């Protein structure tokens, strides 16, 4: 479908340049992380990577024994954050076997100019870091009053999506590059380089060597992105 575009992109990549003049493993600039943008949320953040613009809000709800809906919702929460154990779920317990806090992260893209994966993951983490518990008197949650108690984040899992086009690997694809993707690997890693989640996408397979290289890029670039938090 985008054969001509794809060929053009590959020709350029072979010279080490991308459509917009970036290097292969260079993120768009500026990367902006703004926390606490939405007063009605317990935590919020807005992340811009180039023209890509994502808003994330965290709501905290008090919940009785988890029902099927809560279980389902919990599974939808970003795997990177969950699997890295960035949030200690034991600390979300209000009274054992009775009441817990449910943390819900909602991601609302404002402008999709490519690489929503990484922008959303960064925004989700920034919003979590920004989140404070609302007041709870044992019966009702008072959302009008935030306490000074923050959600503890013990780790900062960062997702980096590495894209394969032809035999080249790039990060932070724009819209045109996303149309030409052969394969994609989203790699979430924490401070010490431990991987905590992955997702392969795209229509084409990857070799072991590909994955080796993509993981290296993913872990390296995560360190760079983490500085923006």
């Amino acid at each position, binding site marked *: 479908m985008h054969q001509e575009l794809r060929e053009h992109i590959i020709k350029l990549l072979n010279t080490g340049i991308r459509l917009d003049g970036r290097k292969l493993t260079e993120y768009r600039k500026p990367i902006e992380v703004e926390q606490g943008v939405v007063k*009605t949320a317990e935590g919020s953040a807005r992340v811009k990577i180039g023209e890509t613009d994502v808003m994330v809000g965290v*709501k905290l709800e008090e919940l009785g024994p988890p029902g099927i809906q809560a279980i389902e919702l919990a599974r939808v929460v970003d795997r990177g954050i969950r699997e890295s154990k960035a949030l200690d779920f034991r600390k979300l317990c209000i009274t054992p076997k009775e009441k817990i806090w449910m943390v819900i992260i909602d991601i609302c893209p*404002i402008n999709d100019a490519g690489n929503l994966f990484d922008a959303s993951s960064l925004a989700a983490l920034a919003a979590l870091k920004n989140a404070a518990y609302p007041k709870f008197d044992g019966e009702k*949650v008072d959302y009008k009053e935030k306490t000074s108690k923050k959600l503890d984040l013990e780790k900062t899992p960062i997702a980096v999506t590495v894209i394969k086009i032809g035999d080249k690997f790039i990060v932070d694809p724009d*819209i045109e590059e996303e149309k030409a993707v052969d394969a994609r690997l989203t790699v979430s890693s924490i401070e010490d380089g431990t991987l905590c989640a992955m997702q392969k996408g795209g229509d084409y397979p990857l070799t072991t060597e590909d994955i080796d290289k993509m993981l290296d890029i993913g872990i390296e670039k995560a360190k760079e992105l983490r500085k923006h938090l």
Partner: protein
Amino acid sequence: MPYTKRIDGRKFDETRKIEAKVGIIPRADGSAMFKIGNTWAYAAVYGPRNLHPKFLQDPQRGILRCNYNMMPFSSSGERVRPGGSRRSKEISLVTGKALLPVLDLEEYPNSVVDVFIELPQTEAGSRCAGICAASMALADAGLEMKDLVSAVSAGKVDDKLVIDLDYAEESYKDGSVADIPIAIMPNSGKITLLQMDGEIKKDELMRLIDMAKKALNDIYEIQKKALKEKYHEVEM
């Protein structure tokens, strides 16, 4: 206790602080932001573009589709469940009716103009903020328009007529409250949205509409200014 002074200290005919900006979503054909107090609306316009499925097409004129959506974290209380509610569907409908009179859709047969209104943060007056943002976004999209649309809520708190009710006034407990969102086409003064809940006498309503028109002229100036900030006049 009679309502002698507004809870947040505003004059009775004074709106909350307003901010407006045009062209904030580069991927949309037209976009705008309208913030009034703690209520914050984005609007994105896509189109005119081909309408699918085809049986929805009108060979005489294009159609306008509006979608009003509160982001899940936008309410000061519990999280808003995503997906449309009866409330958001109705607001989407009346928003479309409020905007339609300024458009000339006969220019675009078989097409659709989509308007998406998203609210990251709300505290009363969200449909009016959405309409203000949407009309600027339609202009930004380059659609031919007869006028802009400006909207604000007017109302009565206890025995006082007020403009732009905030949450505390909407939920005023010590007296009756009427909440009346109004949208007008500022140049003709014609009204394109009028809703109300609460209690009010007819002569009070008529006075209130006059009060709202004055506030709406100020809002219109803010909308025009935001548009002109994006589209500078070129000296030849």
